[in-house]
């Protein structure tokens, strides 16, 4: 019975970086799930501090990413996850050149910290430690067209998952510690001048709530996520470009679905979208994504 339940979980693979860290899914030992996700984001309005505006010199800002991802069941209790996106940005108006390149490698350890099943209800707690580092020397100080913030990060996340029959709820909260970054200028002004090429990056707290339907073949869920920049950030100054250490807050909602055909449960397709409801110094982004995953079993063939 227990094994059957685990099998159901392991066949449910990861998808987006953010989602893999926040979901209540886990690979069994020696199973390797890998795949790719394409994501497309766009916004034509953004919040400059709390002032919501458009910018005709940017028009619509697009970014798209193609990520390769993997999740390996190292032990019965520990998964190791990896992801690496290639990102491309573009503005529909104005003169600024879009950017593209390999972005940040993320490596996470996901630990099955607690699990209890009472009748048909499962309670699970995971602890995730994620580390990320930029893999290419992209320019962070070219917002909003930079492909990333270029900060090395460490994320500690706790995930609590509750599944009753086919319905589940997942709550997770993460603290993201961000290392200072190096920019191409040796002086800059935030709310005061700095004579250095290093920029202190404020940390971020991220909480995520999901609710939905989950079986071996189908997952359908709705989510609400809140990203809150901690102290040290500042607002985009009036009619100026954003800066990497701006406070960037966003409240997002989204839906997601994943399907694994009964005939080939090792294969899965996923798709979803997200929308930014409210924010500060971020674009009001609409994201859509889709991906494809496959699971390999590295266990010695037994029965």
């Amino acid at each position: 019975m227990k094994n059957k339940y685990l099998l159901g979980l392991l066949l449910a693979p990861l998808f987006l970086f953010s989602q893999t860290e926040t979901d209540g899914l886990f690979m069994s030992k020696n199973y390797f799930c890998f795949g790719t996700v394409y994501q497309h984001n766009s916004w034509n309005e953004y919040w400059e501090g709390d002032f919501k505006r458009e910018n005709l010199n940017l028009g619509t800002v697009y970014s798209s990413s193609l990520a390769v991802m993997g999740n390996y069941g190292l032990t019965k209790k520990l998964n190791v996850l990896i992801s690496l996106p290639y990102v491309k940005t573009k503005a529909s108006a104005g003169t600024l050149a879009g950017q593209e390149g390999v972005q940040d490698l993320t490596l996470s350890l996901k630990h099955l910290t607690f699990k209890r099943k009472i009748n048909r209800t499962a309670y699970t707690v995971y602890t995730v430690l994620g580390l990320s580092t930029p893999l290419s020397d992209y320019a962070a100080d070219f917002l909003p067209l930079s492909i990333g913030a270029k900060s090395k990060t460490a994320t500690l996340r706790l995930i609590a998952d509750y599944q009753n029959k086919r319905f589940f709820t997942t709550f997770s909260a993460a603290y993201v510690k961000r290392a200072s970054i190096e920019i191409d200028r040796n002086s800059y002004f935030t709310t005061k001048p700095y004579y250095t090429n290093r920029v202190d990056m404020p940390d971020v707290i991220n909480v995520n709530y999901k609710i939905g339907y989950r079986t071996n073949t189908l997952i359908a869920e709705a989510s609400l996520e809140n990203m809150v920049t901690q102290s040290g950030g500042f607002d985009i100054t009036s009619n100026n470009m954003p800066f990497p250490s701006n406070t960037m807050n966003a409240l997002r909602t989204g839906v997601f679905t994943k399907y694994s055909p009964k005939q080939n449960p090792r294969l899965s397709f996923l798709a979803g979208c997200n929308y930014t409801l409210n924010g500060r110094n971020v674009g009001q982004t609409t994201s859509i994504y889709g991906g494809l995953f496959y699971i390999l079993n590295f266990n010695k063939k037994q029965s």
Partner: protein
Amino acid sequence: MKSTFKKTSIYLLAVISSIIFTSCNEDLEERNNEFQALNPISQDEEAGAWKTFLLTSPNEYSLDAPIASNSPAFTREINEIKSFQANITAEQQRIIRYWSVGGVLRWNEIMRALVAKHNRPPYQNPDGTYPTPSAANPFANPEFPFSSPPYAARAYAYVSAAQHDALVATWFYKKQFSRIAPFTQDNALQVLVPKSTLPSYPSEDGAICGVTVELLKLLFPTEIAFIQEKAAEHQLYRIIAGANVRSDVDAGITLGKKIAAKFIARASSDGAGAAIGTPAQWAQLENETIAKGETPWKSLELPARPPMLPFFGKVKSFIMTPEMVIANRPVPPPSTKSDLFKKELAEIKSISQNQTRRNMEIVTFWADGIGTYTPPGHWNAIAAESFVKLNYSEVRWARNMALLNIAMMDAAISCWDAKYAYYNPRPTQIDPSIKTNTGVPNFPAYVSGHSTFSAAASTVLSHLIPSKKTSFEAMAKEASESRMLGCIHYRSDCEKGMELGQKVGNLTVQRAKTDGAE
């Protein structure tokens, strides 16, 4: 087995996370926090005879004689110092550390910060027009000023030139009154900064404060509270440190304020107020260019923004006559119909299609765009970091900063004169497929402002510090070329801009050779 795994993995997570989350509190190392207390190699005792910019003579403004240093009133002033020192706080020690680096340097940094903070183009009105900052109503939206590069160049020049004249007068009166410093009068007095052998009345720091505060009140009227706070710190530092008694500082302030008034009167009538022009004048610039058979410049911003300070070329220079500005005006840019123009446009297009990370780095390093201290500010930072190693006296600091900034104000005047005499388009206006690595400045291309500012600055700095000539010239060249790498300028803009910058820089160098300081 199972529990071993569990223990191991939990242990692993705990160890890694505690290392990461506790060891990441970094402190940024800021270069301007590393500067040492000013300890001049030479006191420039004869600086009271140096040539001034506006003062007709160093004693054009009178200064009362000081109280005698052996008087009871002077003893009470020394007692004030001692009473501060007896209960000195950590904050007061921080103020001493900060200001002892030098008044000219710290006020130059403060000014760079004010320029950066106010270097923001106004946000458009709902009808697509733009509001204009108003000196008469500085707190309205948009706040006054918009410290664009020409505004900033002029502001740096006025403050530096006024500081120079105030310090020449200070040196003059120091020699005339020869009042000894408090620590010379009272051997028991502690001095928390390097001792100066100069007479201490009037205080050079007081004079810097007096003159700078008055000019900054004019140039950055919304910042007066902040400016006064800094000035109060600066004055207090001299007294707590035991370098000056209060009457030294007060006399310096009085003298500085009188001299500031002369510079303020000049600033009010130097033509900068009219540099913005009127819609009729903007239309005329366009029509005149069309009449010449050329393609006129158009704003690439949306909504289209009026050209930046089109009549700044008519602002009154400290060194050049209006005739000299016209005489130095570069030859016309290649006609947009010429083969040379097509070749130069193709060069920029090719750069835009073959961008490299190194290009981006150079472009960003020198961009000095919105929200920064502008290219003149960048050269002030370069100069300050070079000067600080040379342990100049305050008066030489002021003189060298004034030469640099007057050259860059002349660069702004001459460059803006050329830009609006020719009113030619940016590369992206002619070929919208040329995407840029930095914002396109909202004024005509020819000649490049960065090139003119940088060549003027490097010419002056190379004269002041000949051992760093190669380095200054390499920086200027890179700053100039960064504008082509950013795809916002043609080669002619940069090359002719460099030539123009060298010309105006040399005018300042000629003055430097005859001002009595060399």
